[in-house]
């Protein structure tokens, strides 16, 4: 028989969650259930707007990961959106397979192509990287414009037979596409949260806050950036595939549109809060509200959007969510790192500890 006594020991523990993130996650879970059941309560119009919202949330989250955390200010993400769309179309046309299967293929292909692209772009510093990324997207657009095998300037459309292979009924197809896009958004945000909570996240946050300090602490900045660029390409291509699967037709102009797939996405991220996971979500909601209010104004609406983005960039560089988060210390996703001192009771058998010391 052993007479064990307990003694207390102080240990340190890195805590991610706090009260706000518990409330936030609970809210997100409820929201997810409500959104996932949208096909049962919403009409076609509601679902159409929601899928568009999801696509922008995903694209903005990925751009935020690039620019807000890794310091890679790309204005060429339309390269991967268009590539994803074209991959889905070409793959399903050539193989006759269900287009849904080509979504991961679109992502993987873009990720593979992203490696040489980013290695080339690394040769440009800072702001020149930005314009370089744009040139890459322009090159892709030009290639798809010139090569007749991929449809040339008039693009390609999905024939009805291919579309019908997704699901037999129109409702079936729309529900399936809706759930896949919702799943992709959850995947993208989940991936970003996991990435940021892992060691990678510490490296990314360090790069975001001070690149020089990050390098001097032994972070291989270029390797982290390469991984982030590839992840962003992977996600953007899958979202691109879904966007054009809904549209059923793609052209070089619509697929590689800098305004649709990058400029708007940047405005969303800047307005919502760059360098925060919550920012792109908040930004997308504001973007769609502004659009609902002013879209009839056409060009004036875009001018308003530009003015708002400039004002936010100058007056609230961390975006609207940043204002709230800085003031109240809120976080929806458990990402903060707080060192907590905890006292734990450890069993300390006295007979055992004595011989061990001898």
């Amino acid at each position, binding site marked *: 028989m052993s007479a064990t006594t307990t003694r207390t020991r102080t240990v340190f523990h890195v805590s991610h969650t706090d009260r706000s993130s518990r409330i936030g996650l609970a809210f997100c879970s409820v929201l997810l259930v409500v959104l996932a059941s949208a096909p049962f309560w919403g009409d076609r119009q509601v679902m159409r707007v929601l899928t568009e919202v999801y696509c922008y949330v995903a694209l903005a989250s990925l751009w935020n990961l690039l620019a807000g955390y890794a310091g890679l200010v790309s204005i060429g993400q339309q390269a991967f959106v268009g590539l994803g769309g074209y991959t889905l179309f070409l793959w399903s046309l050539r193989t006759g397979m269900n287009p849904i299967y080509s979504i991961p293929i679109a992502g993987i292909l873009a990720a593979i192509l992203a490696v040489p692209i980013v290695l080339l772009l690394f040769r440009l510093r800072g702001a*020149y990287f930005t*314009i370089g990324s744009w040139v890459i997207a322009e090159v892709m657009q030009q290639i798809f414009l010139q090569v007749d095998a991929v449809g040339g300037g008039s693009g390609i459309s999905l024939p009805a037979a291919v579309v019908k292979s997704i699901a037999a009924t129109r409702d079936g197809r729309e529900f399936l596409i809706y759930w896949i896009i919702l799943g992709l958004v959850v995947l993208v945000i989940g991936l970003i949260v996991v990435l940021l909570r892992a060691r990678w996240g510490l490296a990314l946050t360090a790069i975001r806050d001070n690149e020089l300090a990050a390098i001097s602490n032994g972070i291989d900045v270029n390797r982290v950036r390469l991984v982030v660029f590839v992840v962003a390409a992977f996600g953007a291509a899958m979202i691109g595939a879904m966007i054009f699967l809904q549209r059923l037709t793609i052209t070089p102009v619509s697929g590689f549109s800098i305004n649709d797939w990058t400029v708007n996405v940047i405005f969303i991220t800047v307005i919502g809060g760059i360098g925060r996971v919550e920012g792109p979500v908040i930004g997308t909601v504001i973007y769609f509200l502004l659009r609902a209010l002013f879209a009839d104004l056409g060009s004036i609406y875009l*001018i308003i959007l530009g003015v708002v983005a400039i004002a936010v960039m100058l007056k609230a560089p961390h975006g609207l969510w940043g204002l709230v988060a800085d003031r109240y210390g809120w976080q929806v996703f458990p990402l903060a790192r707080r060192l907590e001192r905890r006292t734990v009771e450890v069993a300390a058998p006295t007979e055992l500890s004595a011989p061990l010391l001898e």
Partner: protein
Amino acid sequence: MEWVNVVVQGVLLGGLYALFAAGLSLIFGVMRLVNIAHGDLIVVAAYMGYFATHLLGIGPFASLIVILPAVAVIGYVLQRALLNWTLGEELPPLLVTLGLSVIIQNALLILFTADSRKLDGGAIEVASWRLVADLSIGVLPVVQFATAVAVIGGLQLLFYRTALGRAFRATSDDQTVAQLMGIETRHVFALAMALSLVVVAIAGVFIAVLKSFNPFAGPLLLIFGFEAIIIGGLGSLWGTLAGGVLLGVAQTVGSQINVAWPIIAGHVVLLAVLLVRPQGLFPKVSG
């Protein structure tokens, strides 16, 4: 002879690209700002030329007398009222000028519709000199290239021979020390932006005589300027001229092979330079 002609055309066109590039690299050099709205400001100058020629009944080149002071004022005010507030970090200037670019494009669209316009250069547009039997060169391209060389030579003189140039170089090297030496950097930055717009407005009027333009023509002009800078090598004005010429030749040779290829030929040269010689062909600081 046909190919000689194509190359000569490219060289002469390259002068314009060098001017776009000189304006872009001037502000990047002085204040580390890459102006995404650069191309759109060139288009603004082209529209000013269009309206100056139509309202005042003068030729496009005479209209520069009106346009240049106007764009200088726009540049100065733009810098002091907006862009000076973005400097310091990498992200704000990029995003603010991106916003500016969208605003300018849509404002031009509202004001002037999406119609393509072109400046009428008059008799000089069709005049040409016959050099040898099969080779003649247009007077306008020669004038345009000579202007480009003169402007770049003028910038070179300004940078290395004047007090303003010294202030530009000093702020470029170390903003804080320049400030300590009594240079008012905010004013210097605004002057640099004014000068940049003057340089590109000259090029803008030439390109508007050469090709038609619309409210969305700006982004491609920015890309051409950027390509000339990277091909030529950062920090050297004459290198930028060489970069512009190479880009121009790539484009005219590309379009000679296939009419749809000029733009992609320029992109390919840029990518090749990045791959083989990322510091550019004629960098100022090697290594």
